[in-house]
């Protein structure tokens, strides 16, 4: 499974990814100008987090043990058998927001106006996710998760660096538990 990785050193917090995610994936018009005039206003599926010191775009991690999946009251959240991604079947969503309470990353967003929960589906049906295409700093990258999965936890960071070839700029895995 491919996931979106973020180069923290490159993200400037400009929120271009957020903007274009909303336009491309949330609007009918598909252009910035048209999207801005729509009601309800299109919403992005990822959010740029951070403060003055550091920023990064955060979107669904498609967790292997995804707590949101068991929480959904109406089987609207499913793991897609083909891509392994965690998806919201929007037509089944009953807007109870239970999933938003179970996602530890806070990346499922209520969209009350449209009455469904909004989350990143990694633009699975497109060649590349929109956010990745539009990022002016190339801070986002698609990475194969299995490559990391094969590596035992402790060594992941080290190997990750080697994989990327550059010592300080290697891809590193980050989780909350450490």
């Amino acid at each position, binding site marked *: 499974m491919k996931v979106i990785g973020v180069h*923290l050193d*490159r993200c400037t917090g400009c929120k271009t990814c957020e903007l274009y995610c909303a336009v491309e994936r949330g609007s009918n018009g598909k252009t910035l100008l048209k999207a801005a005039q729509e009601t309800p206003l299109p919403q992005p599926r990822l959010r740029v987090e951070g403060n003055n*010191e*550091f920023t990064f775009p955060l979107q669904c*991690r498609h*967790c292997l*043990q995804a707590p949101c999946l068991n929480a959904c009251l109406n*089987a609207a959240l499913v793991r897609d058998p083909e891509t392994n991604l965690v998806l919201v079947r929007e037509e089944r969503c*009953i807007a109870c927001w239970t999933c938003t309470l179970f996602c530890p990353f806070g990346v499922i967003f209520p969209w009350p106006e449209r009455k469904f929960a909004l989350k990143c589906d990694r633009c699975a049906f497109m060649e590349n996710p929109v956010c990745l295409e539009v990022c002016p700093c190339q801070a986002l990258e698609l990475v194969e998760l299995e490559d990391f999965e094969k590596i035992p936890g402790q060594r992941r960071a080290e190997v990750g660096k080697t994989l990327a070839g550059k010592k300080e700029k290697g891809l590193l895995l980050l989780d909350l538990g450490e």
Partner: protein
Amino acid sequence: MECVIIGGGAAGLQAALHCRRCWPEKSVLLIEAEGDVGYCNPLLPQFMAGQVEEEKLFFWQPAEDPLLQIRKGIKIRSLDRPTQSLNLDNQEKIRYERLILAPGGQPILPLLRREDLPEGIFPVRTLATARKIRDWLLKHKEIVVLGGGLVGVKTAAYLQLAGFAVSLVEKEDHLLPQALTKPSARLVERHLQRLGIRLFLGCLLEDIQEEKGILKSAKVSGQWIPGETLLIAVGSTPNIDFLENSGLLQDKELLVSPALQTADANIFAAGDAVTISTSGGEKHKPWTWPQAVTQGKLAAENLFRSVPLPLNVLTRPNSMNLQGLSIVILGAPTPDAAIISHDRTAEGIYRELFLRGRKIVGGALVGDISGAGLLHFLMINGSEVDGDVARFLKPQSRVFYQLLPSSKRQRRRARILFPKEMLS
């Protein structure tokens, strides 16, 4: 039969499906007393109100699988452990190798144990009764809902919105007493009143009056409220009468270990029927939909494991969207916990956290539920929150970065944020 599952609710159905996934060689039989399997109880209020059609309630349809058998409309009468068999109400006997009990709960019916009840009184719990309620409501527009807990509040709100005249009766002095403090409940009360619901707080149902076999009014703390419909939503008790002589009950409770194993190593139990007893002697009753699903799956996984694995999370958070008012309940107020709150009542927002030391042990978010997932994560992890806890209370959705240890915050490295199996 190798695996038998009793009850086709949230826990039982997931147990059956997961059993097929985890143990593909084993045959599974699910027995459900009623006629429906695979529907969403939380949607019943909308269904009764006529806002959701019946087919929308079903989230699962049986697929062709020779090793999964589902028998509906058959009730288990008793369990005979020495012979590892079940007695069904049609006199049949079924043997099991492993058993999962997921009979859920039955509604508590206060005051109304009378034989000659008039028409118009219904508990809110199953689809079968919800169908009757929906039909009944076609002709009867005045409703009294008894119970200001989650189910009562939801039922009242959806019916009022659908054009019925609803009175809501709660015996405590505020709504959702098991989940909210008085100030946060105040917002919910205001919202319901704005919808037009009449609230009777601190009131008990004392009597009923009938006319020609149909309910006419309900007496609530001395006051007669007119209404041909009384919907009862004062909670549930485990549906475990059929286990009376099984030796599995203790003080009328079906106790299981955190691995969901009963006193019999071949029998597991999940969902609203169980009380989980930890090694420290604490008892938990996390009776919610997400728990029922998680437990059903875990029970299935544990069936043939030599060492069954425990459930990680025993909390029972809940979320509700009352058309215009979102409510998240992280955990109930406890007497020994400190309360911090973010009060913007005028704007319809009240957020509170219950703390023991620097640990979050509960809380509620009303009107603005942003950051709910992170707060829940901090709570179930038992994390000590450093710095100013109140920062999490301010409504904002972008707070994840605050959880990252400062060593991770250096800008110079490229990282994938990856959760590992942190909640597995």
